[in-house]
């Protein structure tokens, strides 16, 4: 990386980019209110490993991974989309047809590319790690700010593997996620083991009851008893029915595609149930070996991953629209960084943070297919750079949350985003 854009500069550039639509007084005061959207839910895809923007949402002329020396460029052909002038890779053909409901933010950038965990943490929390504060994830902030839409379900659910970056940080464990690692097993702790049917669960409960009644009603153990009652409800049909995909029409299930698609279908059901924020991880590395971390040979089957993303994303957009939920549900496609136009010696790609694509869809935003542009090598933004705080601010604003609002870490005020500014044109 020869040229790097300092983070402060990015902020400045971003501010200039949106100046046209805002009064100068607003710009002078970062605490002033931003335009806020009306989205009620967020489904956050996580493509762990670093999605190659040049092979997906920010295509460039074809390169050649196997020539000597390898020729930088896209690995696949580009196709037109529903938005004139906006192209994507040929493997996103279904998404291309609904691109008018999507905005690819092509100029997201940061400087943390050596270690997946570090960048994953940055994209989830919107901040660099600190020596004194553990920042909460996007999901935890949204959960804390808006709570669940339905008080009987969790505010924040994760379909994927638990990790620190998805955690609640200083907001505390009660703003953490409830997780499930795949669509068959249901959420950890709430799904009963397969050898416990309803009748057996009822006998167990009746055996437990006398042991629960040993404490006075106004006592600490009695509070735990109340939590037991709530847990019992959550492991019953009232909550667990949301996880039963077999009640969906088979055409719907097929439309979404494989396990990742099924996770997205489940996410739609959770939206209907009133969950506020759902992170859906695309952790299916075995499709191509490396998942989205397409070094070396991981490149060869990358198109299978992209096609999975294509069915799931377009399926979700269309399905939400059919259920009249698309305007209320913001879809975000997140990944920790992008990948360069050049190929590595094994025909795959390394890491790149100077410019990469994150995707927004639905959520009542004024979509435009794409926002921002990168240079010929997909390496640097040439217009409208978007910092990670700006991207976070856009998500929060879309969900009606003031990104400058201050959370409290003990007595210390911490703004929701690190000075982020929403992308104004999406709110026009």
């Amino acid at each position, binding site marked *: 990386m020869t040229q790097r854009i300092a983070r402060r500069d990015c902020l400045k550039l971003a501010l200039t980019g949106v100046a046209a639509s805002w009064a100068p007084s607003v710009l002078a005061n970062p605490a002033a209110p931003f335009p806020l959207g009306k989205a009620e839910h967020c489904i956050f895809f996580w493509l762990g490993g670093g999605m190659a923007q040049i092979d997906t949402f920010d295509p460039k002329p074809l390169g050649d991974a196997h020539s000597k020396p390898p020729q930088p460029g896209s690995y696949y052909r580009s196709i037109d989309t529903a938005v004139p002038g906006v192209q994507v890779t040929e493997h996103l053909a279904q998404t291309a047809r609904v691109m008018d409901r999507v905005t690819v933010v092509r100029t997201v950038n940061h400087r943390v590319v050596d270690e997946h965990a570090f960048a994953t943490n940055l994209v989830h929390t919107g901040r660099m790690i600190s020596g004194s504060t553990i920042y909460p994830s996007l999901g935890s902030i949204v959960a804390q700010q808006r709570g669940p839409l339905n008080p009987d379900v969790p505010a924040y659910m994760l379909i994927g593997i638990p990790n620190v970056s998805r955690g609640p940080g200083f907001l505390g464990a009660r703003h953490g996620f409830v997780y499930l690692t795949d669509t068959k097993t249901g959420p950890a702790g709430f799904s009963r083991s397969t050898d416990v049917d309803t009748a057996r669960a009822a006998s167990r409960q009746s055996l437990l009851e006398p*042991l629960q009644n040993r404490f006075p009603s106004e006592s*600490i153990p009695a509070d735990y008893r109340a939590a037991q009652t709530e847990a019992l409800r959550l492991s019953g049909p009232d909550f667990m029915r949301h996880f039963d995909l077999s009640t969906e029409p088979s055409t719907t299930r097929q439309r979404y595609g494989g396990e990742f698609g099924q996770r997205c279908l489940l996410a739609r059901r959770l939206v209907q149930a009133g969950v506020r924020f759902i992170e859906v991880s695309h952790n299916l590395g075995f499709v191509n070996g490396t998942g989205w971390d397409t070094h070396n040979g991981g490149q060869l089957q990358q198109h299978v991953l992209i096609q999975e993303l294509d069915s799931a994303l377009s399926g979700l957009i269309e399905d939400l629209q059919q259920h009249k939920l698309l305007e209320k549900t913001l879809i975000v496609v997140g990944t920790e960084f992008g990948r360069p136009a050049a190929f590595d010696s094994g025909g795959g790609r390394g890491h790149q943070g100077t410019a990469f694509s994150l995707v927004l869809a639905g959520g009542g935003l004024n979509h435009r297919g794409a926002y921002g542009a990168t240079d010929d090598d997909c390496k640097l933004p040439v217009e409208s750079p978007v910092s990670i705080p700006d991207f976070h601010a856009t998500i929060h604003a879309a969900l009606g949350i003031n990104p400058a609002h201050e959370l409290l870490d003990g007595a210390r005020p911490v703004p929701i985003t690190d000075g982020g500014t929403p992308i104004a044109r999406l709110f026009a």
Partner: protein
Amino acid sequence: MTAPRILWCVLILMGSSLVALAQEPLTSEVGSAVRLEICEQGLNDQDAWPEIRPTATESFEIPAFGIDRIPPKYVDDGLRGPRPSPSLVRMTATVALPAGNHRLLIRARSASRLSIDGVRIAETAFAPKNGGDGSQADTERLVPLDLGQGYRFAPRGEYEMIGQYEAPGVPIEVTFELFAGGREGKGARRVEVGESVVAVAKAGSDHWELLTPSTPGIPYTNSRWEEYSLRVETLVNQYSAAQRAALRRQSDNYWTSRREAAAAWLSATPEVPVPLFSDAVRQNPIDQFVEHTFSLVKLQNDRRSPEKVDFFRDVKPLLESRCLDCHRGAKAKGGLRLDSQQAVETGGESGSAIIPGDTSQGELLRRIQSHDAEVVMPPKGARLSETEVALLSRWIEEGAVWPELPLVRDSLADPVDDAGFVRRVMLDTVGVPPTSEEFRAFLSDHSESKRAALIDRLLSDPRWADHWMPFWQDLLAENPNILNPTLNNTGPFRWWLYESLLDDVPLDRMVTQLILQRGGDREGGPAGFGVASQNDVPFATKGAILSSTFLGIDLKCARCHDSPTGSSRQEQLFQLGAMLAKKPLEVPKTSSVDPSRLTAGGRVPLIEVTLLPGSKVEPHWPFLACVSPEVTRQLAQNPDDSRELLAALMTAPHNERFAQVIANRIWQRFMGRGLVEPLDDWEKGTPTHPELLRWLGREFVRGGYRVKSLARLILNSAAYQRSVDQHLKRPDPLYTACEPRRLSAEQVVDGLFVSTGKAFRTEPMCLDLNGRRDTSNSIDLGTPRRAWMLASLSNERDRPSLTLPRLQAVTDVLSAFGWRGARQDPTSSRDVDPNALQPAILANGVMSQWLTRLSDDHPLTELTLSDQPVESLVDELFLRLLSRLPTSEERARYVEWLAEDYAARRVLNPPRVPPPHVAPKLITWTNHLQPESDPAAVARNAAVQQGDPPTPRLDPIWRARCEDVIWALINSPEVLYRP
């Protein structure tokens, strides 16, 4: 003995050169042990055998040619340090083998060679250099060798080779040498041995035994290896303890002089008089202090009347939630403190806040009712409600009564009964409840001193160390990551903590070691405390940890600016950090606040930045109020070294704050509440029992800075031994009764395993099972036997092949109950509030399923099969799981439930299902990106979810009924609360 084996041998032989080993004269007779030697010198970085036989630097004896660990290397003051990588391990013995043609198997992580009477029998090659990115297939080791039913598969991808040996029938000299560790890129691999073994299948037999000079032989099967491995672990631990003790003896003189200095200080300073209260002359001094304060407060509170506003119930919570953030401590806003009666009446810059009995004057009432945005209090958040204003007004009108402490109860609760005491004191000292044997023994003991005797026994129980680990891990933010260190990760200094606790190292010495940060940072030495990956100023982070843990001084805010409410300044933190760094410390931009942000929006800045980014701060002791450097200079061995000086200043007897802060933390752990709260920020609190606090501090010094000496005093007090008042919602600061106290996450998990008896069986805490990566990016935290040994499993990579499902099942429970896998910052108190996930994970989680299901290896299965009346079974289940007998109603209920078909519960001649003999797929870093690894991991995770198969020895219907009873008992709330 099929084609693959032959191919295997050929592959390995091709990679090696056959060099005759110079025969060493061995003089021993056929002995009873194998001599194990570790050689650190005479090896080079290249993958090659040394031409000259290296000399051993350490040696000890093991029972057979089999080892799965070598002792840690100890350096300095008995700390774990790095071993040269590679090192060579040599095992030798004179062995008797009957005459005949035997097969010999060798197994090792990398290069090894087996010689008998100087002749090479078998060897394995050097492991290739491919720690790499995880996409390399390591084909020759993905599928282990399979030598038939009962054969133990190589657990960690060890190399294997079989050789034929024609034994002459006379004693033979066996030498097995192997490489541990090796270079990897610019770094080094961990110096480990995997499972290194020589096994023999004697002529005509297919049964493999470990080669050993002793009789009888040791079958090399899974279950027998586990037993053997435990024997080796015990031997290694004994050897290691002796190594540590020998190293520590080298600095005995210094520490003796420190004890003398402490004794001199004690005699030069006045003792704290113990109040002689009531007639109880024989009472523990602690009780004299506690009961004295109780009687005083009782007198004060007698002036209360039920119709009046109650300060502690009504007023204090309001002040705490809405006012005290700004109005307490040295920097109280507007000079007004609202944390004591005197301060409130004195008032601040604007005059008296409260005039008792007069609601027409006083700033407090004026401010909270003002509609002027510049005047109104609190300045942020919602206005006080009308009810709240009316309440404060009425309280002032009634005279603003402000008793020293609330009187929660009018009398002291009775002592806890024996059943409650044995459970409580075991949970508080060794972290687990009593077994039914321990329980019965204590209850049937009728001696008067049995409680004191039990306390003494528990204080010398090695499980004490296990129980105190989480306390230190939380305070010192021990945060290792088994994969690439990233988010504020430290080294695994847990091993130093554990061994210090196990060896009962006095705390002043332990803190000195912590501050000196010696030993190996990746091996478990205190050097690992000094690390904070991706942190802009690790030493500032560590300085803040030291000051809050050991001095009760909170420097968290001071990382970027002076504390807005307290007296701590950013300069102090950086001075402390510079002492740790042993050089000036620069304030980076990232640890400051941009001045333009402070005044953004035109507001008055809440904080002050007095150190500009780029400032260089010299090493300097910042806490002159605790102790002055002059006093302690002679205590440090080398006072010119700023770390040594810091250690001496921190731990000197003259620094009374240190001993008192520790005493307060120990007190809190046993009594539920500190004499000063918050524990880590004394500026914000006032001691409830200042004399007791000072007395405890001095007793701690007098007891040689041993936590156990204070523990013994506290545990023997009547205050500690009072029964629980179930109505208490929080600890009573007068200690009239115990509150129901939620156990820690570790106590919950360890307690469930101990009480059910189910083995705590997980994967090793390691993602680099075959030790191919560089020590800097992969560590092995071992296979946990207690909950504290777990760590975050998070690697932010979302790959099933990098998951550890059994460990995940345990961390799910731990996390629900307030354990943090990633300890990015220190904490003195965990969240213990109930939430739905806690009962859910205990009711339905994978770990509970292991505990509940009556599988063949479950001790409760044996219990249910034993011949006894169903009533006894129910009693025993209650004793084991709840440390009490059932009430008669409970007994009747569960007996009725289990009596049905009880007589027919045993299945006669159950089908014998041999354990499946399938080679497990090795999934480790080197192959985790191979296309087959993720599906294999998904299948493995599904199997873990399924749990162990139920025993065929019990009738399935009755078994399920009994499992339901076990389920009910482990889900009983009383499992979670200290009696």
